[in-house]
């Protein structure tokens, strides 16, 4: 088949054969990877600017208004536009797949990806046209500072973020409505049974009964473990959405007051209290949502790849419940440099409870590795490679954060490139995304009705470029942080030139990897297929009936 024919028709992809659930999943996946490309380009622009006067970009990119507006939308596009879309798409497919029940509403699923796409685009436009740049932290009163920013830009930005959160609430409703629907295998289950299982309480009770020499509370939990992780992580997603919406409303009210000519005193809102409130919510994305969703994804991938039961499943269930308490109590590690923050909160929430994440994530890593090990020999498939890459990512990123969540270390690392590169970027680019790529390769044949991937060579090139580039960029950025480079600061004189050039080289590898991946996908589904994904589905089915056991057979 010629290249041109592949480009137009793909390999054997037939969009007409897809049902409604498959199509809505693929729509969100397409948007997610387009946003990923945008965020990679933004990241590269920022990396190039800080290499100093020798950077090849036009001077406007080094202007503070321009530079910080990119820095403001970079995490919005990356975390919400790309990551949220991909995770939500995967979970709205997986919950029906694992529970063998239909998704509550396909219309709502369409609403979710549309809201997140439009919201992300609006936030991006606010930064592009009005250079609204309070950064994602929105430290009060900066987002309401109309001496530095256009109020209209702020309003557009906040409306964009609010739409993303409305889409997020749609996802949450769809997930819980699907889980609690008493149809199929859950026909005879009560809401109480589903709740107990969803919070991992049955796993905890099984462990307690085992210690007391009693028979297990339940031999067959109502919900599969990955669904428990989705259920549990979605609690944090909900709380986070409420906090971000509340902060957005606060900013919006002040901006609208300013536009109407009223001169409201921003000092009416306590900055430190606001920081506590905002970080409590925002940290639920990082320490609650990501870690729990990721742990659940690892468990799912390990069981799908090996076809075996998860090692220490009851412990894993109980740990997800424990994480409920941990993720709600760790936010103070973001406030270790705030001298007004009570010392006891720094000590208990910022240091001690935060250190618990080493345990919960370490446990997930252990359970996943042992499950894989017990099933050896395994074929080194793309999904297994990416899963191992994801484990490496979190193996690097979590300790990097725990090290900084310490009153001694924080004094010399807070707000440096250490936390954003060695922790955040490695956790997201390597840890989270490689886990998601693994899920993508596992689900690809199911979601696309066995479409043949255009090139396995390109898949491998993508893997290695992405892994080396992602770790390299995080490592060189982290080293710059140790050398004193701040994370929210503009450097135009090449102060950290050598490390930034090396980070830019690695960043380029990530960007090229994305092009290679995109090319491989487009050549597999074809442009016709790509357009077809967005056309209405002829088959309105909202569930998919392949048994998970069939996937495991392919890895043996």
């Amino acid at each position, binding site marked *: 088949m010629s290249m041109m024919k592949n480009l137009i028709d793909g390999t054997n992809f037939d969009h007409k054969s897809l049902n409604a659930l498959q199509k809505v999943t693929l729509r969100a996946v397409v948007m997610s990877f387009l946003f990923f490309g945008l965020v990679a380009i933004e990241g590269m622009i920022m990396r190039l600017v800080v290499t100093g006067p020798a950077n090849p970009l036009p001077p406007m990119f*080094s*202007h*503070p208004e321009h530079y*910080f507006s990119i820095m403001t939308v970079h995490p919005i596009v990356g975390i919400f536009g790309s990551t949220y879309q991909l995770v939500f798409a995967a979970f709205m497919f997986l919950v029906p797949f694992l529970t063998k029940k239909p998704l509550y509403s396909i219309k709502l699923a369409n609403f979710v990806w549309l809201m997140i796409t439009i919201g992300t685009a609006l936030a991006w436009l606010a930064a592009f046209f009005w250079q609204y*740049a309070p*950064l994602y*932290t929105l*430290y*009060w*009163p*900066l987002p309401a*500072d109309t001496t*530095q920013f256009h109020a209209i830009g702020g309003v557009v930005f906040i409306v964009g973020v609010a739409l993303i959160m409305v889409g997020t609430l749609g996802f949450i409703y769809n997930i819980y409505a699907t889980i609690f629907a008493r149809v199929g295998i859950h026909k005879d289950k009560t809401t109480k049974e589903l709740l107990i299982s969803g919070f991992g309480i049955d796993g905890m009770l099984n462990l307690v009964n085992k210690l007391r020499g009693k028979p297990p509370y339940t031999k067959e939990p109502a919900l599969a473990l990955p669904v428990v992780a989705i259920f549990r992580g979605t609690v944090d997603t909900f709380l986070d959405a409420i906090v971000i919406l509340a902060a957005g409303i606060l900013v919006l009210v002040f901006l609208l007051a300013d536009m109407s000519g009223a001169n409201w005193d921003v*000092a009416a809102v*306590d*900055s*430190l209290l606001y*920081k506590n409130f905002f970080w409590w919510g925002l940290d639920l994305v990082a320490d609650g949502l990501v870690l729990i969703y990721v742990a659940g994804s690892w468990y799912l991938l390990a069981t799908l790849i090996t076809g075996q039961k998860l090692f*220490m499943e009851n412990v894993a269930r109980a740990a997800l419940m424990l994480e409920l308490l941990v993720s709600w109590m760790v936010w103070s590690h973001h406030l270790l*440099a*705030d*001298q*007004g923050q009570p010392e006891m909160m720094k000590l208990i929430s910022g*240091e*001690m409870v935060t*250190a618990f994440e*080493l*345990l919960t994530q*370490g*446990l997930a890593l*252990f359970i996943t590795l042992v499950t894989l*090990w017990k099933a*050896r*020999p*395994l074929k*080194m498939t793309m999904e297994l490679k990416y899963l*191992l890459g994801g*484990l490496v990512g979190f193996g*690097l990123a979590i300790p990097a954060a*725990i*090290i900084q969540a*310490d*009153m*001694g*270390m924080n*004094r*010399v*690392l807070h*707000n*440096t490139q250490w936390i954003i590169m060695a922790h955040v970027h490695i956790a997201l680019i390597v840890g989270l995304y490689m886990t998601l790529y693994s899920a993508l390769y596992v689900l690809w044949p199911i979601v696309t009705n066995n479409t043949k991937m255009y090139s396995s060579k390109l898949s491998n090139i993508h893997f290695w470029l992405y892994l080396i580039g992602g*770790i390299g960029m995080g490592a060189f950025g982290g*080293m710059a942080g*140790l*050398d*004193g*480079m*701040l994370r929210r600061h*503009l450097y135009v004189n090449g*102060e*950290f030139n050598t490390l930034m050039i090396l980070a830019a080289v690695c960043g380029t590898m990530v960007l090229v990897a994305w092009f290679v991946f995109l090319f491989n996908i487009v050549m597999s589904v074809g442009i016709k297929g790509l357009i077809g994904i967005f056309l209405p589905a002829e088959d309105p089915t909202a569930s998919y009936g392949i048994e998970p056991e069939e996937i495991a057979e392919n890895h043996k």
Partner: protein
Amino acid sequence: MTFTNSAELLSFHWVAYTIYAAMIISVIAWFGYNLTRKDAKSVFRLPFYTYMAFLVAGGVGHHIFTYNTIPWVSQDITRHDITPDASYQFEIKDHKWIGLPKKITVQCGQTIEFDARSRDLVYGFGLFRQDGSLVLQMQVNPGTDVNGILDPNDILWTFNHNGVFDLTSTEYSGPAQYTEDGEDLMLVKNFVEVVGCKDGGGKL
């Protein structure tokens, strides 16, 4: 073992984390290779409870280690009971330092209190060596008490090594902190000079 300044701590941290990173990458790579082998045998068994104990020891031990080796941790917690050798209080408004001494000269071993107060936005207070590395930093939050007096953001620091340190805000407070060409308007060159220490640190 005690770290007498942040440069020593950062060097130690660089080495320790690099060794850890190389180790975790190697272990997963080795693990992945052996997953595909039919005859792969466990080199060692890591019992679950030993592994968990190792994680607990790592998480808790890290804080115990830093508390006992980094002097500014306990000093920070008990700072309100310590009388500094000198105190400097200043304000920030519209991205400008107000009431800032032109230069502070510190004798080796002196403990200095810096108290920065913001009249509008969230800023940062950070001292940097001439090579760009960070000596110390804190956040500077705006706010007032019921009497309208600005909230303090105070830090105590004991200087044990000679050096000349620059000051700038370590927290983003909007693009107005910079000129159109990106020069930092809050940068104060050579703000602190420490004298009277031996070459390796400590009083002469």
